[in-house]
């Protein structure tokens, strides 16, 4: 194609077929806990909506470079056969994969020989073991780990000098895992967990006719006669009781953790560093606000896009080399370039601290320094991990 420059000279645009880059969104149709509050809309396209937006962004850039990105959605049934799916993808040369999978299925996928040379971008599993003892060269973690989130919250509590914590956790595995991350943060920041309690009731229905009175009594009972404390930290990823705690707890103490003030990689109130544009584009495309998994999927697809733009290649090996190199940086509305930790392939990123309607702060807090980057004050640092990828 010939294009006229204003000085009359003719510019030759890139010739030949465009570079076609397929990106697979691989998920499993498993039911997820619904938000406890009826006010909170239930998103049925959580994750994939962010991937779609990022594909659009990649293609807007790609049109200037003759690069085309395609999003292929592949959702296996609950407990479905990942091996067959992986073999099909590998045969079709589709090995750039955004994985919306819980940790056990992610492990299974990463270990398949068909996926040995793939790039798997984890947007869901926050499990710390995946970053400390089970690292895989073909897996990049886009979603922050629980330890990163607990540290982000811990730094804020230290800054506020709220050093006496009560920890209340649910009985499901993810709840216990977040509680463990909170314990680790307490140790790191020399906060004191003055008491722990488990909440053992089963999840009820979101909708009841006269639920308010019963909930009030349950939460009061759960939190009475606690030792002196500054904050109540709740670990309830399963959405069973966390949002019931604020204002119903026995002592007049703020609730933080998975309810109240929450550490998250994205929040609808985030408008800094151009965040407004991403929020608006997302809302226009999906008719709802952007959730954390949408943002992780957006980051994952943009990571591939950025690597393809800079390397002019769709080859997973070339992209992998670039993503883990010092040249890679992702601009993702956090005011800092995001990069991957070399030893565990976790995306470094600031963590937002937000209440339901308002951004409160962004960690790392200024006082927490690190010899490499302050972002490495969040989560497991190299000496805390046995992973030594890319060495």
């Amino acid at each position, binding site marked *: 194609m010939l*294009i*006229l*420059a*204003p*000085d009359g000279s003719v*510019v030759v645009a890139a010739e030949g077929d465009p570079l076609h880059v397929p990106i697979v969104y691989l998920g499993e149709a498993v039911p997820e806990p619904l938000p406890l509050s009826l006010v909170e809309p239930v998103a049925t396209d959580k994750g994939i909506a962010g991937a779609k937006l990022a594909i659009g*962004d990649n293609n*807007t*850039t790609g049109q*200037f*470079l003759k690069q085309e990105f395609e999003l292929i959605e592949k959702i296996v049934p609950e407990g479905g056969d990942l091996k067959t799916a992986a073999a099909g993808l590998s045969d079709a040369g589709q090995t750039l994969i955004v994985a919306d999978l819980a940790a056990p299925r992610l492990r299974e996928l990463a270990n398949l020989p068909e996926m040995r040379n793939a790039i798997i971008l984890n947007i869901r599993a926050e499990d710390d073991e995946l970053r400390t003892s089970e690292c895989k060269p073909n897996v990049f973690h886009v979603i922050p780990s629980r330890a990163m989130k607990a540290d982000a919250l811990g730094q804020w509590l230290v800054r506020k000098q709220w050093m006496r914590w009560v920890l209340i956790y649910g009985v499901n595995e993810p709840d216990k895992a977040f509680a463990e991350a909170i314990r680790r943060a307490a140790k790191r920041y020399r906060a004191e967990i003055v008491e722990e309690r488990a909440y053992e009731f089963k999840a009820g229905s979101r909708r009841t006719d006269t639920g308010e009175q019963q909930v009030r009594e349950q939460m009061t009972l759960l939190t009475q006669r606690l030792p002196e404390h500054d904050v109540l930290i709740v670990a309830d990823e399963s959405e069973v009781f966390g949002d019931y705690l604020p204002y119903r707890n026995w002592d007049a103490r703020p609730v933080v953790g998975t309810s109240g003030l929450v550490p998250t990689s994205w929040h609808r109130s985030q408008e800094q560093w*151009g965040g407004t*544009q991403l929020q*608006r*584009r997302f809302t226009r495309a999906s008719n709802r606000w952007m959730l954390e998994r949408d943002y992780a999927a957006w980051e994952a697809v*943009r990571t591939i896009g*950025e690597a393809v*733009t*800079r390397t002019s290649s769709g080859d997973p090996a070339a992209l992998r080399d670039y993503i883990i190199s010092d040249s890679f*940086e*992702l*601009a993702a509305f956090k*005011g*800092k*370039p995001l990069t991957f930790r070399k030893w565990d392939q976790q995306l470094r990123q600031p963590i937002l601290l937000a209440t339901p309607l308002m951004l409160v702060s962004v960690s790392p807090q200024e006082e927490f320094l690190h010899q490499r*980057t*302050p972002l490495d004050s969040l989560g497991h640092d190299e000496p805390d991990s046995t992973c030594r990828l890319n060495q």
Partner: protein
Amino acid sequence: MLQRKWMALSVALACSTALDQARAATAYVSNEKGNTISVVDLDKMETVATVPVGERPRGITLSHDKKLLYICTSDADHIEVLDLESLEVIRTLPSGPDPELFVLSRDGSTLYIANEDNNFVTVLDLTQGVVATEIPVGVEPEGMAISPDNKVLINTSETTNMAHFINTETLEIFDNVLVDSRPRYAEFTPDGKEVWVSSEIGGTVSVIDAGSREILKKIGFEIQGVRADTIQPVGVRITPDGKTAFVALGPANRVAVIDVASREVQDYLLVGQRVWQLDFTPDAKLLLSTNGESNDISVIDVAERKVIKSIPVGELPWGVAIR
């Protein structure tokens, strides 16, 4: 002794001349959060008026006769025209959604507006007050610049990470240059031979040859005691003699001084917090920086390369234009 007195006298003379010539200059500052324009008298060195305008005013520019101020009121989704005599908004112009920055054509007839929200540059015919056309560009268009001969329009797109070169006659992109992450601002050298593009997240300024569209150099910044990831280049201004460039470095709270010929950083000037945009007084003796977090502007003596004054303005100052 006599010699020293002479020197002191001549320095004093030089200073007073610099200030004399800047006199009668008035700066206009858009306050992003305050929804106002601060009017700053550079003789008195103080804010003398605060004018309410539409929501989230950011990019501002003067008409060539300096009687009007065009304002991107981003959240109001239009351009407002402030009459600088009466200090009243006399006209509202369509802009497309979320206008952030714009540039006026050399003949003053056209505004080229970056619509941050929808991947377009809107071409606004100022004589008719209507949108002439929209040019599709990359994701999140922001920086805008026009060549001295009015033939080439530059737009930078923040998520696409490119400087788009647009032919102002055909209104089509004729070339794209990949730069570092989140390019925010573009500025031609006065001779039109180079385009300087700042990358906020990349932390660099790319110097692009306007003829060949090759990147001649990526200028990096290093300030002792300042964390590298807080160095985020935004506004760029080059002196009319084409010798010196000034680059606002965002949360690093510094303005870099760069020798244009060698493309080497010569100095860093400490200004207020989160410095966004810059502008010269008409005689180019003073440079002003808007400091978003500290709600003030810094006044820089260009020849001395010294910050000589901070002047409080409105909430979250963003853009600046001086007449």
